[in-house]
């Protein structure tokens, strides 16, 4: 199966002061398959939002892309944002729904004017009537009422606004949609509706695949086929969501899982322990494995050198010294019956 998107060794740093760098994304590689939802999870400050911006080529100063390559459908895509170079790929190849997108709708403009602006920025000669037709058609295809086009943002509920933003972000038929925390600030009913819309976009082949960035694991468990866990700008674990969640290999993933509040009817008040401490200062990240100061399995090697990649099962890998030591050959690890992706 050909990969839709391949990104290798992405590095993006924020410039601070006169000479400092915050290493927000430091060597992240990922790949996306057609028709797939890839989840990216981690605490705030782990770099997942920065990664989203880099993948969508909207990184701009003080965020500087320092390295890495990205190919979509085999063709190379420029990573730096800003006004340099040809910006035609933005929104048409990879489109970003940034965090809090629904709050960035212009309150003095009707939705249809916003749609016109978006389409016009890619094709200055497009006719207004044509943009409305396209929008209407797309809304109908996705079972949304066309009347939202005539509304002002404040007349729509939070959930509807977010869905409208999702539709507008995909009007140019991008191959990949990157959604950064799209469900935060939404009620559960609205969350379901939004995620149903995204799945619909995939099933109707309007877009090729989705990268869903969130810190809420229950959401990923229910919609993402594969999940990546990020910590301090780097990946710790990647694999099929079922395995990453129910048979986590990396100590950080294990801790994240244990900290998740679950809806349990049977065992109430079974004490849940959250993660202690906070993410490291990314201008001077810890040496070796960046998680070692908070890791209960930390070994001496962890503070000294970058851990190796261990593959507990096919398609599932983690970057950890303790795991490398503790796990014999992959077949003996984790749960049985891990499904092949």
């Amino acid at each position: 199966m050909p990969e839709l998107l391949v990104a290798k060794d992405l590095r993006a740093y924020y410039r601070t002061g006169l000479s400092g760098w915050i290493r927000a994304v430091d060597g992240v590689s990922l790949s996306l398959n057609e028709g797939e939802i890839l989840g990216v999870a981690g605490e705030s400050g782990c770099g997942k939002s920065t990664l989203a911006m880099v993948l969508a080529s909207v990184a701009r100063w003080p965020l500087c892309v320092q390295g890495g390559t990205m190919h979509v459908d085999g063709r190379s895509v420029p990573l730096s944002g800003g006004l340099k170079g040809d910006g035609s790929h933005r929104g048409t190849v990879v489109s970003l729904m940034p965090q809090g997108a629904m709050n960035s709708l212009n309150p003095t403009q009707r939705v249809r004017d916003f749609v016109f602006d978006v389409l016009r920025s890619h094709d200055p000669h497009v006719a207004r009537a044509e943009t409305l037709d396209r929008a209407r058609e797309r809304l109908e295809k996705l079972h949304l009422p066309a009347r939202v086009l005539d509304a002002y943002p404040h007349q729509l509920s939070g959930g509807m606004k977010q869905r409208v933003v999702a539709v507008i972000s995909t009007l140019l038929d991008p191959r990949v949609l990157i959604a950064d925390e799209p469900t935060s600030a939404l009620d559960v009913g609205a969350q379901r509706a939004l995620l149903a819309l995204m799945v619909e976009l995939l099933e109707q082949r309007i877009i090729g695949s989705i990268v869903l960035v969130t810190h809420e694991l229950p959401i990923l468990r229910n919609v993402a086929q594969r999940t990546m866990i990020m910590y301090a700008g780097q990946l710790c674990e990647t694999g099929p969501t079922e395995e990453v969640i129910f048979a986590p290999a990396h100590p950080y993933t294990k801790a994240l899982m244990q900290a998740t509040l679950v809806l349990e009817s049977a065992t109430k008040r079974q004490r849940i322990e959250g993660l202690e401490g906070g993410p490291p200062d990314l201008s001077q990240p810890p040496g070796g494995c960046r998680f070692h100061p908070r890791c209960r399995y930390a070994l001496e090697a962890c503070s000294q050198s970058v851990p190796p990649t261990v593959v507990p099962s096919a398609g599932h890998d983690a970057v950890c010294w303790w795991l490398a030591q503790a796990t014999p050959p992959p077949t003996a690890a984790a749960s049985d019956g891990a499904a092949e992706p």
Partner: protein
Amino acid sequence: MLVRVRFLRTAIHSGRFNTSLVLVVLVVLFALLGPVIVGHDPNAVVGSMNASPASHPPLGTDNFGRDELTLLMYGTRTSLEIGAIAGLVAVLIGVVVGTLAGFYGGVVEEALMGATNVLITIPAIVVLILLSVALGSRSAVTMGLIIGVTSWPWTARAVAAQTSSLRTREHIDIARLSGASGFGIIVRDVIPYILSYLGMAFTLQLATAVLTEAALSLLGLGPTNTISLGILLQWSLLWEAVRQGVWWTFIPPTFFLSVVSFGLLLLNSSLDEIYNPRLQGGGGSGA
């Protein structure tokens, strides 16, 4: 701390800020230090009447034979003094009225804002003329006071709007829950948040006050027995300087009036840009 450091960094990089700051500082230095350095008595007759700058450098003399440069320095100082007093008075009254109206809302807001709106609709110049006439002799301080007292409604409205939007913030609720009094909340939890705004209001009020003083002086209602930029202009016009071609008595005061207002307005707009990062130009190509 972080806010201040970021402010300084952005400020230093902003061309507008640097230019306007330089302008304003130069004018202030001119007004304050000039007399010390040059040292003439502004009322002393130093040359013949209406001597041109060619014969009496650097700026000639007025129709009484007084040194024009010295007159300018003293005039600018007085104008700035009046502007500063007016600005201070306007901001003080505006803050009191605005925060009370914005914080308490309801009947208090309706009453205060209603009164403010009525005052805005009364043309300030009419009130000023009447006040000036009523007060037989007016010192610079008095001028500053009456200009301030007629221009506070603008600041009050702006402050009321800002306070109104701050009122719903959670730190205000926390202050209430800790038993703080209304006055305490306004002073500690509202005013620090609008301080930058008040600074900008002050510079704007200063600039407009300087121009208002000039307008009043031209009408003969300026400060008595003092020299201000407006008074200089008034004398110049009274003694038919335009018709006689005595340009050095009316162009320099006009120039200084323009520089002062322009500098202050530019400073104001650059401060707005600094406090409001969204107004800054995009650093797209990696500035």
